[in-house]
């Protein structure tokens, strides 16, 4: 089982400090973890810090996996490279491996992830000619193709239609269950979070404000504090919890 734990982690861009001491208990793998917070709260920054792209003191503790096992999917998806979808996914798989040749096993791994994301039809298309949602699906394929044990995804469903949002979250959930991987998703859709993620980390203004089981974290009080939104959680007729938004607070109250 893989776990991820933050211990007084600092994250900064040059001199500009975003986090001073982000701390979480050990987050275990095997299920999905959400990272929520308003715009500019520091979700992407925390991911970059965990992925080792930002400097800062403190400890990111990983058990049950190597640092090489970590894959991070950044938020932006603009790509100008003259590469086909196949080449882009192979490229992600081949990083850190040597040799120009592709084994049958490697090719099978690429085929498998394209099939699971239902994008085999795109395999020979050029990256630059894809739609925004298609590009996001390719990014997801690039992130998962090497079967990492620690996955950080920054808004992986932001460009997807309803069907593909559902499919991707289901895929990620079964991926986590199969591999025992820690999978952390930055998400804005809180109903999605409630449906798919077992654990939730809430951040605001460079601080971790809550960590725990999703339904406990997403309390009306926290939603008010994070987003200045009045909300309630009700159970739908099939028994699943839904967040209903009643309105916005006056800013500053």
């Amino acid at each position, binding site marked *: 089982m893989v776990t991820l734990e933050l211990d007084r982690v600092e994250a900064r861009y040059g001199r500009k400090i975003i986090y001073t001491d982000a701390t979480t208990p050990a987050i275990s793998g095997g299920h999905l973890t959400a990272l929520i917070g308003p715009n500019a709260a520091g979700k992407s920054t925390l991911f970059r810090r965990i992925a080792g*792209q930002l400097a800062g003191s403190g400890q990111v503790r990983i058990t049950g996996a190597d640092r090489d096992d970590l894959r991070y999917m950044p938020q*932006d998806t603009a*790509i100008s490279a003259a590469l086909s979808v196949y*080449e882009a996914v192979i490229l992600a798989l081949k990083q850190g491996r040597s040799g120009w040749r592709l084994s049958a096993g490697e090719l099978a791994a690429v085929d498998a992830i394209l099939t699971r994301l*239902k994008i*085999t*039809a795109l395999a*020979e298309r050029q990256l630059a000619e894809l739609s925004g949602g298609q590009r996001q699906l390719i990014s997801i394929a690039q992130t998962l193709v090497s079967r990492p044990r620690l996955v950080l995804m920054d808004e992986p469903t932001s460009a997807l239609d309803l069907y593909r949002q559902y499919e991707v979250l289901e895929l990620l959930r079964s991926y986590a269950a199969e591999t025992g991987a820690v999978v952390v998703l930055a998400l804005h859709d809180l109903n999605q979070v409630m449906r798919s993620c077992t654990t939730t980390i809430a951040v605001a203004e460079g601080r971790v404000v809550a960590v725990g089981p999703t339904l406990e974290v997403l309390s009306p009080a926290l939603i008010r504090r994070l987003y200045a939104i009045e909300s309630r959680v009700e159970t739908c007729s099939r028994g699943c919890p839904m967040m209903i938004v009643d309105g916005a607070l006056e800013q500053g109250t």
Partner: protein
Amino acid sequence: MSSPTETAPIKTAPTKTAPPDTAAHPYRRLVARRITLVLGLSLLLCLSIAVDVSLGPARYALRDVAATLIWPEAADLQMRVVVWDIRLPMALMAVTVGGCLSLAGAQMQTILANPLASPFTLGLSAAASFGAALAMVLGVALFPAALALMVPINAFVMAMLAALLIFALSSMRGVTVETIVLLGIALVFTFNAALALLQYFASEQALAAVVFWTMGSLTKASWDKVAVTAAILVVCTPLFARRAWALTAIRLGEARASAMGVPVRRLRLETLVLVSVLAAIPVSFVGTIGFIGIVGPHIARLLLGEDQRFFLPGAILSGALILSATSVLSKAILPGAVLPIGIITALVGVPFFATLIFTHGRRSW
């Protein structure tokens, strides 16, 4: 008012099934196609070299030239000298210089994420011209120990100084690729102004020499120079080849590449060093042949894509091929004369390049 009346239950989004597993894997087919293209380019290059050697002010039959190449001892002395000491070095110089400049341009475009980056646009050529002019106009030797090679050594030293400046800037924290490109452009203007100043004060004779040098010419080719340019190509190519996957990943953007574990900053600095040498040495031998460094890589990209396993040899081959073909043309246009190759490169390369862009229909960047 129309209301949405979708009734059919949607089970799945439309997805095509995987292609039947009959022949080779589609990716293997793509690779085979690319290898064929690379081999095709190599073949064209050999052909171009052969034609290049057979052409020149003295008209020899193709058969005699071939015989001289294969059995030099059997040929008559004059022919042996012309073919082996004049034409062959020139023909091979076109190949090595074209390959170096195109490879340099390709990797600059890769690490700077800019389709316009090349040794030319980053000021290396302008710096080299200025260095050469220093020698020709003022007789200033930047490396006094080798006076006979004053011009190429001056050119090389200035080009490396410019590269050093760009390198120093790039290794500062928080400097983006856009800043590097802007500095390069500033260098171009600075060195061009300094060159103009030198030309203004130059004697008529020196002025002519400077103008001729900046046009770029292969006529000063020699076996030594061929050996040096070939050697840097032979040294640099495997160094890039070893980093092929990482270099390709850089083209996905800095964030994505480092998310895949590519040490982007270090790779960029290492590449910058190799590229500077790759560009500075040929330029100091043959003068400014600017166009190859931009167009060679773009042709390779259009034909082969940006997987460095194919892009790398493709860029070298297409640069070598353009310059070699240009060398042929520069002799063929005016029989009996050899036009400076720097002039012809753009005249040949642009139509070819434009045709490729417009017939290919694919986005080139």
